[in-house]
């Protein structure tokens, strides 16, 4: 009897230990996977940042570009940055990108908020049909509508203007969907209480609804900013004025300087335009995650 009891007693902690070990190993494995994924994503950015401190000749003379030795700039230099911000006037391209991205973010936030609220709360004929069409439109890529989009912009006389860089993307189906879902999650009684308190639709939108969807709004700002910041195809097509060209296109053009390798400045430029995104992501990521998870898109 006592033998059985002691055996059971000794078995219990072992069982507990094995459960703890399982949990630990699962957590360790998860951490390792996340770190590996992080390395894979961060590698190109880190490589660009390191290479931006090397002279173009050094970059081209690397026999094994991905070896450990190539990661350490033996003769670190800032000449690439001097070139980028000197003769290449890359700051002008960054400013253009900033104008385009800000314009796109402002337009998308205004349109998505108003349209999202209308789809979530207002009753009007054909509401659901229009919303379905809008969702369908989100499946059509920019590449597919590039030519008609160009024609319309040209017809409006907006070719090579800043407005042309962001106007076509003012209506963003994803943004409208995101905001609609967020507005729908606000208890309808909150808005009814405001109606009884004497607020009209605009007042309800600005004083009650929007303050309660700020995480979603932050998500929208971040996503839209990343999209606009990384835009390439549309600016290439619509912007024919080099003085108003955006940074991404200017960077790509560095690859096509005839007989003059620009790898160093290219890496410097790539590093510079990554910085704003990293800063934004750091500040807005907690809202970003909350916004996405509360929009029913887990």
């Amino acid at each position: 009897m006592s033998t059985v009891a002691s055996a059971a007693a000794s078995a219990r902690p072992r069982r507990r230990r094995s459960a703890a070990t399982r949990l630990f190993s699962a957590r360790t494995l998860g951490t390792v996977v996340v770190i590996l994924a992080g390395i894979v994503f961060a590698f190109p950015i880190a490589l660009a940042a390191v290479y931006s401190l090397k002279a173009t000749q050094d970059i081209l003379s690397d026999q094994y570009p991905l070896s450990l030795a190539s990661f350490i700039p033996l003769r670190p230099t800032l000449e690439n940055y001097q070139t980028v911000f000197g003769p290449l006037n890359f700051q002008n391209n960054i400013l253009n990108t900033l104008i385009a991205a800000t314009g796109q973010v402002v337009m998308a936030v205004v349109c998505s908020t108003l349209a999202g609220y209308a789809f979530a709360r207002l009753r009007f004929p054909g509401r659901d049909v229009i919303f379905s069409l809008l969702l369908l439109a989100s499946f059509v890529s920019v590449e597919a509508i590039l030519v008609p989009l160009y024609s319309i912009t040209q017809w409006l006389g907006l070719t090579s203007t800043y407005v042309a860089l962001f106007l076509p993307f003012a209506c963003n189906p994803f943004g409208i969907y995101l905001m609609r879902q967020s507005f729908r999650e606000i208890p309808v009684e909150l808005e009814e209480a405001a109606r009884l308190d004497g607020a009209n639709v605009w007042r309800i939108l600005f004083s009650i609804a929007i303050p309660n969807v700020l995480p979603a709004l932050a998500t929208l700002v971040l996503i839209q900013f990343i999209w606009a910041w990384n835009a390439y195809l549309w600016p290439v097509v619509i912007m024919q004025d080099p003085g108003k060209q955006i940074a991404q296109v200017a960077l790509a053009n560095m690859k096509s300087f005839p007989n003059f390798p620009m790898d160093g400045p290219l890496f410097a430029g790539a590093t510079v335009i990554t910085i704003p995104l990293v800063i934004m992501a750091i500040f807005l990521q907690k809202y970003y995650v909350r916004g996405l998870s509360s929009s029913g898109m887990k």
Partner: protein
Amino acid sequence: MATVEIDKVSKAYGAVEIMRGVSARIENGQFTILVGPSGCGKSTLLRMIAGLETITDGEIRIDGEVVNDVAPKDRDIAMVFQNYALYPHMNVADNMAFSLKMRDVPRPEIDRRVREVAGILDLSGLLDRYPRQLSGGQRQRVAMGRAIVRDPQVFLFDEPLSNLDAKLRVHMRAEIKELHQRMKATVVYVTHDQIEAMTMADKIIVMQDGRVEQAGAPLELYDQPRNTFVAGFIGSPAMNFLEGEIDLGSGRFVSGGGLRLPLPPVSSEWDGARAIYGVRPEHFRIDEENGLEAETVVVEPTGSETLVMARLGDHEVACLFRSRIAARAGQTIRISPVAELTHLFDARTTARISVNSSEIRDKHL
């Protein structure tokens, strides 16, 4: 303060009619409770008064003025919602001040009124807190404060206590009642809890399937329910019902199972008619000499009274005795209903057919 008149109001969603010709009158300063089971239309009616639901047909008048097409904000009413609907991003003071700001009341006046109402509701120390930092009872009080601060003509309450625990509910019940007595406000209050209705109301409107079943003072509904629905809904534990036939010759009601029960006063035209016999649990008496034999199934002593579930012939009935009963489950007791306090309903229409008078009742209580 104002009267609210609901005149033949109907509501339909397409072909589905959810409210049919509802009429009711809520007097100035009266505490009126709309009560009924889920889906009976009581909340819809309240929202119609608020202007949050449109009316398909009929009229709603507040202080004599037809408000069918008047916007909610212009009806001068305040509503307390079931989930309180406090603005999460505003603190208590701003929540209470919002409606006054919307009406362009000067800031010093807003501050004065918010402080005054916060004092009445014991919220003075919580004005800087956000709703998420408050307990259920405190949120409830803020919701009431938001309504009171406006000094509206009519207060509407939509099941405001249903999210509170039982103890707090009893406390808030008394607090709302006391507040009403102090303010003499016209109140329309929705609940599905008949005890809440009985304890708080000046007038109860019982609803079912989008119709008013009966409206009147709480004890009037309790003593003289118009039909079996009201009889079963008002009162806890609920009234016992037995189906059978009226035999005026012997002065007995003969149930389907052959039980012979004493009849309440009923006119002779109902002799031999199929009827439903209703007896409230508290109207059974222990009667060792002439009582009917009943086998106890469950005995629940609460100290002040004893609830006994007993098998009476084929029927299981609830009996509530004000005294302590020594019986245990499975024993036989002899019980009889107090004839004058029982009710008879037409078996076909379920409408009340017996005549009770309050003098008879008073004699027995």
